[in-house]
């Protein structure tokens, strides 16, 4: 299915519908596309198609359908789970050249953009009107909005302002065979099933997004950021719960552990307290009087939970500097070792201390260091496992370690991925989170959109066979999983 009997003919047809330089097929041209942000997984596609408008995307999909060739959609390629990793023999469909901001509708506070527009560019366009787009993944200077939709991206402000799914109004989507679907609209809802929710986070398996209408929010009147240092991670976690118990929903609430703090400090010199076991970054926004009240309340809570130093950034420059340390945590940690493996589990917040303890134990066991950054408000943990791919066995050890962390997340009531997606990376972990019947249901949803299974095949939802082969590792409630499947 994923190899065309006549690649030359396919390439010729694609060249016809694509702009000059819009088709890459020589190995040296394909090389930059061999992976996404998860660089350990690499493959070369049959070719890379770079259409620059909707009709060309449609033509590419129609040609691929005639040839029975699979298509892998790709945005900016910043994804961390291999969702945009090419498939040998398939066409890699880049949406990067669809980067027009089509319409800003100030009266309705919405913005219509093509999928290749960068996340940060959206708020830059809206800001002069006092509006912004809330989801702000750390990769926002590079990642594109089409990819954000595919992954249901979050960011550091989603506890209060939601994920991508909460902030989009409409999508134009092309199906695998090139049919145009208009999903959602400017109105608060649409008749029939909520396809807007279903498309968001579907990792390019259900359709190719060619246009997004985004909801814009008014920029808060004032914003301030508190940085609190703690001598233990447990105390920091308890402070987070206490803030929420007081009825305060901060705009952002982030935690970093000591290794992450040191790495970030070396990298951006934000003035983080190097000797702290954990820091909390708590952003508050609102009117002046309200903000003052909340600041006092949060400060008291932080002190009561043992914060030994609290710094308050009221001006934008200091605030951005403190956030920069957090948003640059991944590349900062990347300087500590030749390679790092970023995990993305979610857990109920109250289980944080025990999860971190187990991770610390395993860190000793595997001989691999771990830095932890945590979207503390919404329970999304990013352990960064440090390793050296050139050292014998370390990659495998890091992967094994990561898999154990994700299984632990599921065991304590969380999920194997909060915002990075399943892609290729977490297919095995999905077998731990879902039963055979649940996976079969997900496959039937896929088939309703893409009966030939040509859009990003093999990603996001593992085959039942794959899980059965892994089966011995995951015995739920004493029962053999997938008992109906034959085992050879």
């Amino acid at each position, binding site marked *: 299915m994923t190899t065309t009997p006549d690649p030359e003919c396919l390439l010729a047809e694609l060249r016809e519908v694509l702009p000059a330089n819009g088709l890459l097929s020589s190995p040296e041209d394909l090389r930059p596309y061999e992976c996404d942000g998860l660089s350990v997984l690499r493959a070369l596609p049959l070719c890379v198609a770079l259409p620059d408008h909707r009709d060309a995307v449609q033509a590419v999909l129609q040609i691929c359908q005639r040839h029975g060739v699979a298509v892998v959609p790709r945005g900016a390629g910043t994804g961390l789970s291999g969702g945009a990793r090419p498939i040998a023999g398939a066409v890699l469909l880049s949406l990067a050249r669809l980067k027009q901001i089509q319409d800003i509708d100030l*009266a309705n506070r919405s913005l219509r953009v093509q999928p290749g527009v960068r996340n940060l560019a959206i708020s830059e366009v809206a800001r002069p009107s006092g509006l912004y787009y809330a989801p702000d993944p750390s990769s926002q200077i590079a990642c594109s909005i089409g990819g954000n939709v595919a992954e249901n991206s979050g960011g550091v402000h989603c506890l209060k302002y939601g994920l991508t*799914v909460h902030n989009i109004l409409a999508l134009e989507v092309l199906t695998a065979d090139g049919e145009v679907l208009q999903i959602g609209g400017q109105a608060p809802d649409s008749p029939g099933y909520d396809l807007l929710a279903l498309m968001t986070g579907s990792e390019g398996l259900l359709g190719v997004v060619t246009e997004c209408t985004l909801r814009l929010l008014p920029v808060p009147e004032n914003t301030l950021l508190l940085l609190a240092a703690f001598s233990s991670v447990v105390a920091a976690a308890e402070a987070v719960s206490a803030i929420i118990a007081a009825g305060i929903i901060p705009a952002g609430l982030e935690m970093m552990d000591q290794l992450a703090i040191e790495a970030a400090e070396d990298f951006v010199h934000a003035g983080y307290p190097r000797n702290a076991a954990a820091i909390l970054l708590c952003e508050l926004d609102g009117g002046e009087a*309200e903000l003052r009240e909340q600041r006092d309340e949060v400060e008291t809570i932080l002190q009561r939970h043992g914060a030994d130093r609290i710094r308050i950034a009221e001006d934008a420059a200091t605030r951005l500097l403190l956030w920069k340390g957090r948003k640059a945590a991944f590349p900062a940690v990347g300087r500590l070792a030749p390679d790092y493996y970023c995990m993305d589990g979610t857990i109920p917040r109250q289980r944080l201390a025990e999860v971190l303890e187990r991770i610390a134990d395993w860190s000793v066991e595997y001989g691999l260091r771990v830095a932890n950054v945590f979207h503390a408000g919404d329970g999304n943990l990013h352990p960064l496992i440090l390793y050296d791919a050139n050292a014998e066995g370390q990659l495998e050890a890091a992967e094994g370690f990561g898999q154990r962390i994700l299984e632990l997340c599921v065991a304590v009531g969380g*999920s194997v991925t909060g915002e990075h997606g399943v892609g290729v990376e977490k297919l095995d972990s999905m077998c731990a989170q879902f039963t055979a019947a649940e996976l079969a249901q997900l496959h039937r949803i896929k088939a309703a959109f893409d009966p030939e299974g040509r859009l990003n095949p093999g990603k996001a*939802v593992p085959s039942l066979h794959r899980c059965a082969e892994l089966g011995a590792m995951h015995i739920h409630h004493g029962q053999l999983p997938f008992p109906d499947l034959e085992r050879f």
Partner: protein
Amino acid sequence: MVNFPFPTWSVFNIDQTEILQATVRAAHDQRQPLTIRGGGSKAFYGRSVTPGPVLELSGHHGIIDYEPNELFITLRAGTPLPVLEAQLDAAGQMLPFEPPHFGAAATIGGTLACGLSGPRRAFAGAARDYVLGVRILNGQGEILRFGGQVMKNVAGYDVSRLMVGALGTLGVLLDVTLKVLPKPNCERTLVQTVDADTAVLRMNAWAGRPLPISATVFDGAHLYVRLSGTESAVRMAQTRLGGDRLNDTESVLFWEQVREQRHVFFQGEAPLWRLAVAPATPPLPLPGQTLIEWGGGLRWLRGAREVSGLRALAAEHGGHATLFRGGDRYGEVFQSLPPTLLALQQRLKQAFDPRGILNPGRLFATF
């Protein structure tokens, strides 16, 4: 604590998964369509169909897990809405989408299946925005769990939100997990006397500024705006917006009447139309009174209407028209979809319910 007219058994946790599963399996085997029923308070909603045997959810009820500090609650679908709300209220929390009950027997399952949200919708989000996870029975009687109890979860397609507003046609909701939020500690309602054009302009101008607004409604002569938040934020906004203040009792009663459609606009037997449109849409050129909610995004109309013209008008303004109550309920009460989208939704229905036994015809005539 709120008083609610429920027998004490309703606070107990009763798990009827097994009997519900057996019933759905038998119906699947016999190709027998089922009518899914929670408390029956929203039986008026959606299309009328020839009733099949009733799959009764009201006996499957109770709160399974509530962690106020984790901001979620997990409960069985047959749990009465007043029981749920009383539980949240006791912990100083609420359902942010402020769902209408439309009757004392309303259940959380029915509320989500209908996908209905109340006055806070335009400012806090819709019912679907607060669903974190579900456990369902599909049309083959399989028990499936999607989502979870965490705010962020992108493992697998978002089946949880897909269930909201599907009117039970894709699956029977067994248990749901919802995100909950703290109740604001201060609420005030202001009233301004304006015409319809001004009302829509003001609602939209306010929405573009960082104000603690949690509801707006225009009744034809008066624009009501509710402010919610800390006392200082509410006081500040009150000074900026101006208008007469309702006293606290009047305020609570007023929004309850709007939410429950007991306001005078909703009285009488004339058909009730619901138009969802782009919020800045100017007052529509339609005879009769319009009640405007949700910052301009929701317009209610009464009386018999020329359906295709009304739907074309709604579509022209980025939305759709629903025959919410009364009128011909055997026709298409929901705006029809373009053929490709309808075909896709039909395939989705088949993916969950291959034999078409879950509330067939309730959403669209063909499935």
